[in-house]
């Protein structure tokens, strides 16, 4: 067996390194209505070969509907969808041999062991991965003889991932793959997913965990109420890179916020119990003013903090329900 030395996907900070790769998923104007209600209200997507694309959104935003259309489970109401060069609604067995799917919810064959279950699924594909190696990849080697029906939730989820990989697919859909994992299991799942990218696999990931998206995704799209409200890298999503930073610090008891220099006081958004928070798009300048002022007065600010908006802050901002 030969370890593949395929070129790892190039990852520029803006995802620009992948422009040359062909699109694996292309979606234009996708709509899906159920009984007149639009679950997906016209979305465009492009996922290029070898990238990990994270699809974020609150429950009910249309994530699973979209994923299941891409997987060929559901029919769309309108729009163009092309996955691996084929319309999933028309796709046949050849196409299915090239995708791997981890569903949001699924049970394994309870009476089979993990190893038997993987062997069964391996038999469905023309080029399956070796069973033992796949078990090892998801960390189930020690549980290979355990009946699926007696596995813990985390073990079953790892089996789900193994079953999605057994056919050695080019494109892998992971619908909330680490939900219910403990932190250690989640970390090792991330290692597995990152390892798949290094093989040149394309991964379409939906998740609720911002850390997961930030850690893994080359690009992120945020879905809210059936529409894509933002798209970008973890660093740039929703203007995160240009969004204001929050500078915060606690003043000593004998100093009041009124004593702050005017340039700083203008930025202050909040004070409580001597804790001051100031928003700024130029944090270095503000901290410089603050430092000069504090030094001149001979005070220190031991809890000085400069905080960038987290991905979660941006996400919550983007997906906030209109009031």
């Amino acid at each position, binding site marked *: *067996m*030969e*370890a*593949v030395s*395929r070129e790892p996907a190039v990852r520029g900070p803006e995802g620009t390194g992948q422009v040359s790769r062909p699109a694996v998923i292309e979606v234009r104007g996708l709509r899906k209505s159920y009984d007149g209600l639009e679950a997906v209200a016209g979305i465009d997507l492009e996922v290029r070969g070898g990238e990990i694309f994270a699809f974020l959104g609150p429950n009910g935003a249309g994530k699973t509907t979209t994923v299941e259309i891409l*997987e*060929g*489970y559901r029919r769309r109401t309108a729009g163009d969808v092309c996955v691996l060069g084929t319309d999933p609604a028309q796709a046949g*067995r*050849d196409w*299915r*041999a090239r*995708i*791997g*799917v981890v*569903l949001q*919810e*699924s*049970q*394994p*064959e*309870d*009476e*089979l062991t993990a190893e*038997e279950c993987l062997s*069964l*699924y391996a*038999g*469905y*594909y*023309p*080029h*399956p*991965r*070796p069973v033992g*190696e796949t078990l*090892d*990849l*998801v*960390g189930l080697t020690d549980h290979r003889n355990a009946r699926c029906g007696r596995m813990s939730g985390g073990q079953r989820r790892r089996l789900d991932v193994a*079953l*999605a990989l057994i*056919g*050695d697919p080019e494109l892998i859909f992971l619908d909330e793959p680490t939900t219910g994992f403990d932190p250690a299991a989640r970390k*090792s799942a991330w*290692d*597995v997913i990152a*390892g*798949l990218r*290094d*093989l040149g696999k394309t991964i379409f990931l939906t998740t609720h965990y911002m850390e997961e998206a930030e850690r893994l995704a080359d690009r992120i799209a945020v879905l809210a109420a059936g529409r894509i409200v933002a798209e970008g890298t973890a660093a740039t999503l929703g203007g995160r890179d240009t969004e204001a930073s929050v500078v915060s610090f606690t003043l000593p008891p004998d100093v009041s916020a009124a004593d702050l220099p005017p340039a700083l006081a203008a930025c202050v958004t909040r004070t409580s119990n001597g804790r001051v928070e100031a928003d700024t798009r130029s944090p270095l300048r503000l901290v410089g003013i603050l430092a000069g002022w504090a030094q001149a007065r001979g005070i220190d600010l031991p809890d000085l903090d400069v905080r960038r908006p987290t991905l979660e802050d941006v996400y919550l901002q983007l997906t906030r329900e209109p009031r």
Partner: protein
Amino acid sequence: MSAVITHPGHAAGTRRKLPYPIGHQFHADLLCYRRNIQSVFFTILMPVLFLVILASIFRNATVNVPGGTIKESVYYVPGLIAYGLITAAFSNLALSVVRNRESGIYKRRRATPLPASVVIASRAAIAVLTALAITAVMLGIGWAAYGASIPGRTAPAFLLDVIVGAAVFCCLGFAMASLIRNVDAVQPVIWATVLPLSFISGIFIATSELPRWLADISYVFPVHPLAAALLEAYNPHTTGSGLNWGYLAILAAWGVAGLIIAVRRFNWLPRGG
């Protein structure tokens, strides 16, 4: 967890054909079925229990059948073979299909290149195999305990009836599964259909002892032709081959109807909420 991932298959540059893994799937289904030992045990045990109980209750009774009278204990053997066959091919099959569908097992398989025909044929083969096992056990008990055996000249007809019956009730089982929305509904639906039909179709009570109108109703449904066809081949008074094309035709009609519903409505995805 190993970080080394190898990439077989494609590396060799070969493009193998998509497999049609019918034997592979059957092997796994059989393994699952055998490990679900309670299901196997009770599927086979239930008709045996009914036979022993009914034959004991009506120990000395006789029943009118075409061509003469036979002991009740003998009469019950083919009837309860029909009952066991329906349990295996219809009830168990519908239950397992709904369970696999609603738990997402079929949905996961749908994302693979596995053809639907493999899933269907493999599950049907399990049902037919179980039906044959039940038939063998019941014939053995009938022979050992009640001194009844199939005349050699009608044995081929009996075997044909069993196979056609199992196949027809498989089709009906798939059709029924496609109409039921959740697992909890399967048992009530099955009991409400199989049990009343069994009572009016000569399985628990001989057709000759039923009110005429009740017997007439049963002629329309598939349970009676199966039980009657098996009885004809099992009845020692039967002359000729014991093959009744009329019964087989009614069965076949039901089988075709079931097959059409099953094929048109077979669904990989869960239907319940």
